[in-house]
């Protein structure tokens, strides 16, 4: 298990689109350098996340996994969408109240991390990673990260465990 590292990266990539909104607002306000820094940060987070997924595939214990139920987990989530878009509603970049925004994002990130909500992850989704909620016969629900399109619940998979309740599919596509 990677635990805190995987949790931190998945949470970061889940809320990273808000940085793109800030980058857009900053760019429109003539702060191109800050906008570029934010975009680079987002790209770096995605690359590191993919690196972690690769590391997990090659270094973590593999486990045979058969789900009893599968539910698409990366559906529209209003909370995330509002967070992503809120910076756009700000009149000007200089008018952003950082004393409110920074703690708000930190708290949101903490809630996402501790509530295992990081399966809403559009950046990894763009790279064809899908997030599913999968149930086991023991009655526990895990978040499965995979590049496969799940068609049957009982498809045998080979997974690695990233955190307590997050597994990544490492079998052939």
């Amino acid at each position, binding site marked *: *298990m990677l635990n805190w590292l995987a949790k931190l990266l998945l949470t970061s990539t889940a809320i990273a689109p808000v940085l793109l909104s800030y980058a857009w607002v900053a760019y429109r306000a003539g702060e191109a350098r800050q906008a570029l820094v934010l975009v680079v940060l987002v790209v770096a987070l995605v690359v590191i996340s993919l690196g972690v997924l690769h590391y997990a595939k*090659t*270094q*973590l*214990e*593999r*486990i*045979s*996994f*058969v789900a009893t139920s599968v539910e698409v987990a990366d559906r529209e989530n209003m909370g995330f969408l509002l967070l992503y878009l809120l910076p756009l509603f700000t009149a000007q970049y200089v008018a952003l109240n950082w004393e409110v925004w920074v703690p708000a994002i930190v708290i949101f990130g903490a809630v996402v991390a501790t509530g295992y909500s990081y399966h809403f992850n559009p950046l990894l989704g763009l790279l064809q990673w899908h997030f599913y909620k999968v149930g*086991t*016969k*023991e009655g*526990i629900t*895990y978040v499965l990260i995979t590049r496969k399109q799940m068609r049957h619940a009982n498809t*045998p998979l*080979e*997974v690695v*465990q990233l955190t307590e309740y997050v*597994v990544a599919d490492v079998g052939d596509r």
Partner: protein
Amino acid sequence: MAKNLFAACRVGTELITKRIALHPDLQKLVAKIFKDQEASFRAGVNTVVPFDGRWTPDEDEMLSISVPAEAEVFASTIEASALSITSLNTGAFAKEGIKALFTGATVSGKTKVLVQPFTAQQVLGKKFTFFQQQNVFQQLTDPAFTMAGGLVCIIEDGQIKFKSQQKLRSVINMLEIYRAATDEEVTSFANHASLTVADVAKFSAATNQTSRKLIHATMQGGILDTYTPLAIEAAASQTGLKVDLLNNKIVMPTEPNNIKSLLLFLNESRYAGPLSGQAYVSNSQRAV
């Protein structure tokens, strides 16, 4: 299909299982080791006989017992999703009370478990262990363990198949199984024409594993068929052992220690020193 390695840990009187996380390359290697050990375990065996108290079967035999309640955890662990099995604390695995390492698979609804014994000697952290690195030996400071050279049992078809009771009892509690397996022989012994046993059930309950081994040896040796109770009583008195006779039959004592003393004598493990006449009890014999 990935195979995971599990540990059976003795916690109090029950066995609990934990998952041992391995690097994927090592997982493949461990799976191969278990597969080879299974082939070796089954090699030359063409009969599986129900356990009857024997310590070792013949070369072409394996012994079998029904899976006792405490050992059901082996198959249920293999049948469960490995994610639901708690991971072993790798930093302190020497304190986990590991008694066995095992792996297995469920194919077409049939579960097979391959079990290796695990002893404290396999934990390398308890001793000084050296490993070679950059042309010099260094001390191993991280926790490490070795795998056993063979299987102790295979669990399949609701049976535990094994070759050595001694090894198997290091993994599961064999006391009740041994008692059940040898009850028939104990009863047969108690009903021998040269013995009188007041209460066979109480006698059976009073015999422990050592006594039952001695009963088995006595029956195999045919001592009671060869010598009369009178001759046995006379010989016993020379070693300081009082044997009661009733209607020309040996009266079996009721106290476990006295039972054991009589059984030791019947196995010629109690004797008088040839010079001093001092009574001795031996724990091994070698014919000369």
